[in-house]
C-alpha cells in the first residue's frame, strides 16, 4: 500500500509544486519535465488503484491517524476513483499538449506548471475528500487557480474574465461556508458520512435552507444557469490547455461536489426536481446563446455549459439509469471538450479576432487540427459511431425511464440547435475559401500526440462502449448506495 496510496494524488503534486522553483534553479528544462513525470505517475497509480478496486470496498485513507468522524479521510471508491482516474489521465494529456505550448519564457512556464499541479491536486482533493470543509478548501484552491490562469495572457481581456469569476467565486465560497456552519451547528461534525447519518434528525426547514445554500454555492462552480456568467468569459480568455482543464477537470469537480452533497450527505426531498428545472434552464439558455456566438471559444464555452446542464438533468432523476447516463455524459464531456479546446487552441492561435469566420478554409492549411476539431464536434453532438452517441442514448433512455417525455423532446430540440452551430463551424473549416494572409501554426508533435490519444479514446468508446460501461455501472452502484458509503467510512457506527 505504500507505493500506491491515494494520498499521493494530493501530496505529490503539492510537493512538486512547492519544489518546482528549486528544480528550475538546478536545471531549467526540469520545469517542463518534472510535472510530466508526476502526472504520469499519478495516472499510473490511479489506473492501478482503480482497476484493483474491490467492489463495495472503497479505499478509505484516514489522516493523521484519526478515524473518520474525527479526522479527515479520503475515499477512493468506484465513483470518486473513476473521476480521479479521468482527471489524472486528462492532466497528463494536458501536460503532453502544453509541454512546449508557447514560448512564454522561463518565469511564466514555471508559474503555469506550478498552477497546473496545484489545480490537479485541488480538483482531485474535491473528489476524494470525505470531509465537507476540506472539500471547501480544495474548491477554493481550484477557484484561485482559475483566477490566476484565466488572467495568464496579457494582451486579451483576461483580467476582466478573471475578475468576474472571482466575484462569483467569492459569493460561492461565502454561501458554502454559511451552509457548512449551519450544518456544523446542527450535527456537530464535518465528516460527510457522519453528517449523512445525523442529518436525518435536522429540522426540515433548517435542512432546506442548508440545501439551498449548498445548491447556490456549488451551483456556481458547477456552471448552473443563472450563475454561469463567468463561464464563457473565463473559457474564452484562458489559454487553450487551461480552458481544456476547466472543462475536463474543474467543471467535473464542481458537479461532483454537487452530486456528492445531494446524493450522499444531505437527503432533501425536492432538491432533485429543482436540479431538473435548473438543468433544463441551463441547457436552454446556454445552447441558444452558443448558437449565436461569433467567437469559437465562447461558442465552445456555452456548449460546455449546456453539457453541464445535461449532466445535471441526468443526475436529477435520482435513478440508477440516470446516474449511469450522467456518468457517461461526464466522461464524454471531459474527453471530447478537452479535445475541442485543445484543437481550438491551435485553430485560433493565428487569428487575431478568434472569430469563427476567421477560420474559413482552415481544413486545408491545418488539416490535422481541423480534423480533430471536426471529430470532436461530431462526437459532442452525439453522432454515431463516436462516444457522444452512447452518452446521449443512455441519457434519453434514463429520461424515458422517469416518464419525462417533454424532457426528451427538449433535449433533442436543443441537440438540433447544437448540430446547427457545430456544423456551421465544420462547414467553414472545410468548405470555404480561406482568407488571404493567414499565418499557419501547425501543432507541435506533442500536441498531435495528445489530441490523437483523445481521438482514439473517442472512437474506441464510440465503437465499443463496453470498454467503460462496466466501470460506470460500478460507479453508479457506489453512488446510489448511500448506506454502503456510510458503512465503509464509519465501520463501527453502532459504537458511536
Amino acid at each position, binding site marked *: 500500500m505504500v507505493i500506491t496510496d491515494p494520498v499521493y494524488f494530493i501530496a505529490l503534486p503539492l510537493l512538486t509544486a512547492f519544489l518546482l522553483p528549486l528544480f528550475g534553479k538546478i536545471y531549467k528544462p526540469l520545469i517542463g519535465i518534472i510535472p510530466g513525470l508526476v502526472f504520469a505517475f499519478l495516472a499510473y497509480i490511479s489506473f492501478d488503484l482503480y482497476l484493483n478496486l474491490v467492489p463495495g470496498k472503497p479505499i478509505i485513507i484516514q489522516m493523521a491517524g484519526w478515524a473518520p468522524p474525527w479526522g479527515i479521510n479520503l475515499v477512493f471508491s468506484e465513483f470518486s476513483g473513476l473521476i480521479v482516474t479521468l482527471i489524472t489521465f486528462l492532466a497528463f494529456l494536458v501536460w503532453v499538449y502544453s509541454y512546449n505550448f508557447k514560448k512564454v519564457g522561463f518565469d511564466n512556464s514555471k508559474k503555469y506548471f506550478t498552477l497546473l499541479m496545484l489545480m490537479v491536486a485541488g480538483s482531485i482533493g474535491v473528489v476524494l475528500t470525505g470531509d465537507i470543509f476540506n472539500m471547501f478548501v480544495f474548491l477554493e484552491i481550484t477557484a484561485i487557480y482559475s483566477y490566476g490562469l484565466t488572467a495568464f495572457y496579457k494582451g486579451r481581456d483576461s483580467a476582466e474574465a478573471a475578475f468576474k469569476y472571482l466575484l462569483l467565486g467569492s459569493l460561492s465560497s461565502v454561501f458554502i461556508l454559511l451552509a457548512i456552519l449551519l450544518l456544523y451547528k446542527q450535527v456537530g461534525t464535518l465528516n460527510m458520512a457522519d453528517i449523512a447519518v445525523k442529518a436525518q434528525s435536522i429540522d426540515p426547514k433548517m435542512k432546506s435552507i442548508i440545501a439551498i445554500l449548498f445548491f447556490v454555492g456549488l451551483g456556481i462552480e458547477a456552471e448552473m444557469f443563472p450563475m454561469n*456568467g463567468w463561464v464563457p468569459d473565463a473559457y474564452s480568455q484562458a489559454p487553450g490547455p487551461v480552458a481544456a482543464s476547466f472543462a475536463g477537470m474543474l467543471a467535473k469537480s464542481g458537479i461532483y461536489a454537487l452530486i456528492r452533497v445531494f446524493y450522499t450527505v444531505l437527503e432533501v426531498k425536492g432538491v432533485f426536481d429543482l436540479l431538473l428545472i435548473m438543468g433544463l434552464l441551463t441547457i436552454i439558455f446556454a445552447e441558444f446563446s452558443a448558437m449565436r456566438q461569433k467567437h469559437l471559444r465562447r461558442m465552445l464555452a456555452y456548449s460546455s455549459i449546456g453539457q453541464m446542464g445535461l449532466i445535471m438533468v441526468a443526475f436529477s432523476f435520482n435513478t440508477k439509469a440516470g446516474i449511469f447516463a450522467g456518468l457517461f455524459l461526464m466522461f464524454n464531456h471531459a474527453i471530447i471538450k478537452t479535445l475541442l479546446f485543445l484543437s481550438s487552441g491551435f485553430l485560433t492561435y493565428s487569428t487575431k479576432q478568434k472569430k469563427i469566420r476567421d477560420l474559413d478554409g482552415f481544413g486545408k492549411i491545418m488539416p490535422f487540427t481541423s480534423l480533430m476539431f471536426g471529430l470532436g464536434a461530431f462526437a459532442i453532438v452525439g453522432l454515431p459511431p463516436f462516444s457522444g452517441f452512447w452518452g446521449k442514448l443512455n441519457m434519453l433512455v434514463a429520461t424515458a425511464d422517469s416518464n419525462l417525455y417533454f424532457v426528451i423532446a427538449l433535449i433533442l430540440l436543443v441537440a438540433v440547435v447544437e*448540430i446547427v452551430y457545430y456544423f456551421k463551424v465544420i*462547414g467553414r473549416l*472545410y468548405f470555404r475559401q480561406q482568407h488571404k494572409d493567414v499565418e499557419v501554426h501547425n501543432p507541435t508533435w506533442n500536441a498531435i500526440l495528445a489530441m490523437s490519444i483523445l481521438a482514439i479514446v473517442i472512437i474506441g468508446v464510440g465503437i465499443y462502449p463496453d470498454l467503460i460501461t462496466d466501470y460506470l455501472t460500478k460507479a453508479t452502484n457506489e453512488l446510489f448506495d448511500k448506506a454502503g458509503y456510510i458503512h465503509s467510512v464509519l465501520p463501527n457506527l453502532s459504537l458511536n
Partner: protein
Amino acid sequence: MNSLVLLILIIAGGALLSYFGHKINKILGNITVFAVALIIPIYWFTQVDFTETVSFTVSGFHMELGYNMYGKLFSMIVMILSPLALIYAIGYMKDQKKLATFYFSFLFSILGMTGILMSRDFVSLFIFWEIMTWSSYLLVIFLGKDVQKTGIKYMVFSAIGAYAMLMAIVIIYKNTGSMMLSDYFGSFAGFTLQTKLLTGILLLLGFAVKSAVMPLHVWAPGAYSNTPMAYTSVFSGALSKMGIYGLGFVVVNLFAQANLEIVGYVLAWMGAITAVLATFSAVFQHDAKKLLAYSSIAQLGYIVTGIGIGTELSIMAGLYLAVLHAAFKGVLFMVVGAVERQAGTTDMNVVSGLARKMPFTFFTALIAIIALAGIPPLGGFVGKWMLYESLINNSNFLMVIMIFLSSTAAFLYCFKFLFGLFLGQQEPEFDHVKEASPVMIIPMLLLSVFLLVTGAYPGIVFKYVAEGMTNLGFHDVNWQMSVLTNAWGDSVNVQHVYLSVVVVFVAFLIFITWRGYKHSTKISTKDISSSGEMIKPEDNMTYAMDFYKPFQRVLQPILKWKINKYYEDFGKGLEALFDFMRRIYTGNGQTYAVYVIIFLAILLIFSKSIFGY
C-alpha cells in the same frame, strides 16, 4: 466470419482505403475506388448469406443484424446503383480536389444504407441512420456552395427527423424493454392508443424527412442540386428510399394492423399533395438540377402515396416505382452531371442542343425520361398504372385525380428537360463540348439497359418486390398477375409484346430525331428580327427560355405560397429569440452577482413549496 459483419467491414475498409489512397496519389485512389466499387456488389451478390444473423450486446442494448426480404429488396437498389455511381464519380470528379473526403463520405453513406437495411433493432438502425446522415451532409456541402444555407437546412431537417426517431425509440424501449424491431411490432397491439400514436408518428416523421414528404421537403431541392451529381444519383435514387423503407414497415406493419389505417391515409394524402406541388414547381425551374430535384420529390410523393394506401396492389406499385425511380433518377442525375461537366452549366436558359455533341448521354437521358414520364413501353408506366388502379379500387377518386394531374404535368417538365438540354438550337459557345468520358457513360448506359430490360420484363423487379412484401405481411403475392397481363389474358406472352413495342418505339424515335435534324435549317438564336425594338446582346432567346410562361402566370397564386419562406421566417424568429435570450449575459460581472443573489432569494422564498417541509 459472419458474412454480414464482413460486408460492413469491407465497406468501411474500402472507405478508409480510398481515403488514404487519395491522400497518397490520385491514380492510386481512383484504382482503389474502382476496385471497391466492384468488390462490394460482387461480394453482396455472391457471398452474402441472407439467412445469416449476428447479434451482440453493446452498452446493455441487444443489437442484431440480419437481412429480411424487404430489406434485401432495398439493398439491391443500393448495391446496384451506388457502385455504378462510384464508377461514374471517378470520371465526374476527376478535376475536383479533396477527393479523399469525397470517397470516404460516399462509401460511409453506402455503409450507412447497407447497415440500415440489415438492422433488426432500433439502436443499430439509428446508428447507421446517423452515419448515413452525416456522411451525406459532408457531401451536400462538399462543393462549398451555399454551405450555410443548404447544408444547415439539410442537417437541421435530418436531425429533426433522426431525433424524432430517437425519441420514438426511447419511448419504445421504455414500453417494451427491448430494442428489437420484432418486439416492437409484436407488442404494438398491446400499447395504449397514445403510445401507439406517439411512437408510430414520431417514427413516421423520422422516415418522412428522408423521403421528402411535403412539409418536410424543403431541404431536398437545395441538397439535391448542390451535391456533386455523382452522389446525387445515389442521394435521390437510394438514400431517399431509406425513408420509404421505414415508412413501409411502420405504416403497413403497425398502423394497418392496429386498425389505424387513418395514419396511412393521411400519409397518402401528403404524398399526393407532394406529388402535385413538386411537379408544378419542377415545371418552372430553369436549372436542370433543380428541375430534377423537384421531380424527385414528386416521384417520392407517388411512392409515399402507394405505401400509404396500404393495399397489396398499391404497395406493390409503390415499391416497384421505388426501384424504377432509383434507376431512372440515377441516370438522369448522371446525365445532368455529364452535361455540367462537359458544358459547364446546367442552366436550360443557356445551354441547349447538346444532343449531337453528347449522343450517348442524350440516349440514356431519353430512356430515363420515358421511364420517368410513364410512357408505355418502359417500366414507369406499369407502376403508375398499378397506382391508379389501386387508388380506384379504394375509391380515392380525388387522389387519383391529383396523381393523374401530377403525372400529366410531369410530361411538361420531361419535355422541357429534354428540349432544354439536348434539343433545339445549339449555341456557338457550346461548340467545343464533347461527349463525356467512357467511365461516366458506361454506368449510365448500364442503368439505361436495366430500364429497357425492366420495361420489357417487369417481372424481374416484381419478383423481388413480391418477395419483399412477405415481410410486410403480404404473403404469396401473385406478381405474375400484373395489370397488363391480366387485361390481356394469360395466353398472350406479354414479354414479347413489350419487347416489340420497345423496339418499334426506339427505332421510330431515332428515325424522327435523325430526320428532324436533317431537314432543319440552322439559324442562330441571336438572329432575331424585331419590330423596332432594340435587342440587347444579353437578351437570351434560347429555346427553353420562358418555356411555360403562360402556365406560370395561371399557376402563380399557388406557387407563390412557398413553405420554405415560412421555415426561414421561423428560423429568423428563433435567431432573434436566441439573441434576446443571450442578453442575460450582459458582460457586467456585477449583474451576474445580482443574478446569484436574486436566485438565492427566490429559492429561499419558495423553499417551502420546493422542499415541501
